[in-house]
């Protein structure tokens, strides 16, 4: 009997302090192992960010690692362009923000009603449509680059931020729609019918009863879209040449691709400037994301 208790403590035997202590030790060892593993695998990432910070504030990195001399020289781009070649930084930042917000608004505005229709309404071609959106999502966006270039040129949307976020949103919409559909599916029909019986129209039911319940979904696709929009690179450098429409990724791209020697200090400073808002944004919104799985809100119905 005692052996049994040691091997697998049953609820009634938990009170034994020796068993408890052993349990606790084992748990602590396990936690230690997990943390050690996580620290080791995330070390390269942390080192990368650390290198960026050091590089941007020091005059020189000895052997590429040891910082020497503190300077703000690399951050001068904040008030004066590194050379005549570069557009105004704040205009570029504004363009980046415009891209991120435009992307977010488009995604939410299209995915929210579309997912409602797919979740709640019966219409011909519904399942075909669902299957097609998945296929579209599986399509690597890069293969469409040339085709979309021509489409945008025809529409006169080249060299414009809306051109980029429309393409980007179109490619991300399948994911957004599926996420939102999961949230709608989790709401019971009874609640919707109840609103109708209470005297709401179909539209009122949607925005007074359904929409508030899928807000976690709206939050999650907004966060994703914003971050994707902010950090978009390939479509920006393909579709936008006009310096007035540059975003920060074009800016950094041209620092990296500068014909002169590569200025690591400047590159690090601009890179930090570029990722800081995303990190901050993520820091403040991650609690919404943590509540979300594809199926709906965690712990929800």
């Amino acid at each position: 009997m005692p052996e049994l208790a040691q091997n697998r403590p049953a609820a009634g035997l938990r009170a034994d302090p020796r068993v408890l202590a052993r349990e606790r030790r084992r748990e602590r060892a396990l936690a230690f192992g997990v943390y050690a593993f996580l620290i080791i695998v995330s070390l390269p990432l942390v080192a990368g960010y650390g290198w960026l910070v050091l590089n941007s504030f020091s005059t020189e990195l000895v052997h590429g690692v040891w910082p020497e001399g503190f300077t703000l020289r690399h951050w001068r781009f904040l008030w004066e362009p590194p050379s005549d070649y570069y557009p105004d930084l704040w205009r570029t930042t504004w363009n980046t923000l415009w891209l991120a917000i435009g992307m977010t608004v488009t995604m939410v505005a299209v995915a929210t009603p579309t997912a409602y229709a797919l979740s709640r309404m019966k219409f011909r071609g519904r399942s075909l449509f669902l299957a097609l959106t998945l296929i579209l999502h599986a399509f690597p966006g890069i293969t469409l680059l040339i085709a979309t270039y021509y489409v945008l040129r025809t529409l006169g949307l080249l060299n414009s931020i809306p051109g980029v976020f429309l393409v980007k949103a179109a490619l991300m919409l399948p994911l957004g729609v599926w996420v939102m559909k999961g949230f709608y599916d989790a709401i019971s029909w009874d609640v919707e019918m109840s609103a109708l019986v209470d005297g709401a129209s179909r539209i009122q039911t949607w925005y007074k009863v359904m929409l508030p319940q899928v807000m976690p979904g709206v939050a999650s696709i907004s966060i994703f879209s914003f971050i994707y929009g902010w950090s978009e690179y390939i479509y920006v450098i393909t579709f936008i040449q006009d310096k007035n429409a540059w975003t920060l990724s074009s800016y950094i791209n041209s620092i990296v691709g500068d014909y002169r020697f590569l200025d690591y200090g400047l590159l690090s400073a601009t890179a930090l400037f570029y990722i800081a808002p995303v990190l901050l944004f993520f820091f403040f919104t991650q609690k919404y994301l943590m509540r979300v799985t594809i199926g709906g809100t965690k712990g929800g119905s």
Partner: protein
Amino acid sequence: MARIRLEGLTKAFGPVVAVNDVNLSIEDGELLALLGPSGCGKSTILLMLAGIYRPTRGDIYFDDQRVNDVPPKGRGVGLVFQSYALYPHMTVFDNIAFPLRLRRAKREEIERRVREVARTAQIEELLARKPSQLSGGQQQRVALCRALVKEPELLLLDEPLSNLDARLRIETRTEIKRLQRELGITTILVTHDQIEALTMADRIAVMRSGVIEQLSKPQELYERPANLFVASFIGDPPMNLVRMEFRNDGGMPRLETAGLTIQLPPSARPQLERAEGREVVLGVRPEDLRFRTEPAPGLPVAQVFMLEPLGRDTLVDMRAGQQSIRALVPGSSEAKIGDTVYLQLEVEKLHVFDGVTGVRLDLGAGEQPALRVEAKGGA
């Protein structure tokens, strides 16, 4: 308040006919129960009355006005869902106020009416909470308040008590009944619990597979079930049902099966004539079955097989020939397991059904009204 009439109401979901040709009229202020097993179409009828489902065929009238094409918001119906269907993102107050706000009622009026109905249901102190912070019984009250606050013409309750524990169910039963009486609202109560239906309803419609099998007052449903289905559905413990043959030779009308013969009064003859030589089903409620332990000539004989004390009563399980028969006797039974007992049957308490169609056959004991339900072909 309204008088409700359903005419030939039918609803099919693809190949599934959920409600089949239902005719029903409900008087102003009446409480009608729809009683039947799971999946028989009760909720479907409610949702058609509320305007959520469109009937495949047939008409719905509120006070002689055909409402088939009237959307839910125009019907003045209050509906309490089995799941309560409260709006999880709103407080209790906002839940109850929701129908009023949609009607653009004035602020003060909303405030007044919500508090009033909340007071009646004794949930005033819960108004600031969210539904997730309420117990099942409290949620049920909120759902009821939300249905009542708009002063509906017709109140529909879809198994409102099924999520409550036994005690709360009895309390709420009385409370709903009282409220319904006071307000005089025409009400349809859906339930699969016969006690609920028998205690609350003015009339009961027993349903099976989308069809109304019997529509009558609770007492009559119990005393004169119109067919085998109703007989076996109503009553707990269920009615004893024994397949027997009707014999009339030798001027002695009687029912026979292996090891059991039951004499019938001569008055039973004309009613059963057409069943002559055919199979019938005899039904006796356990509580109507009496027996004695002293031998008596001419009474059917049975052996006590098992005793199940239920507290107030005892359920006596007996074997008569090959038939298993149960009797419910008050107190504890004087008979012991293995005893031979003699069954005493009162003709007025016997139910006889056609062996093929299941329709009730009258024994002609005393005067009784004619059958209400006609035989259904092949049922």
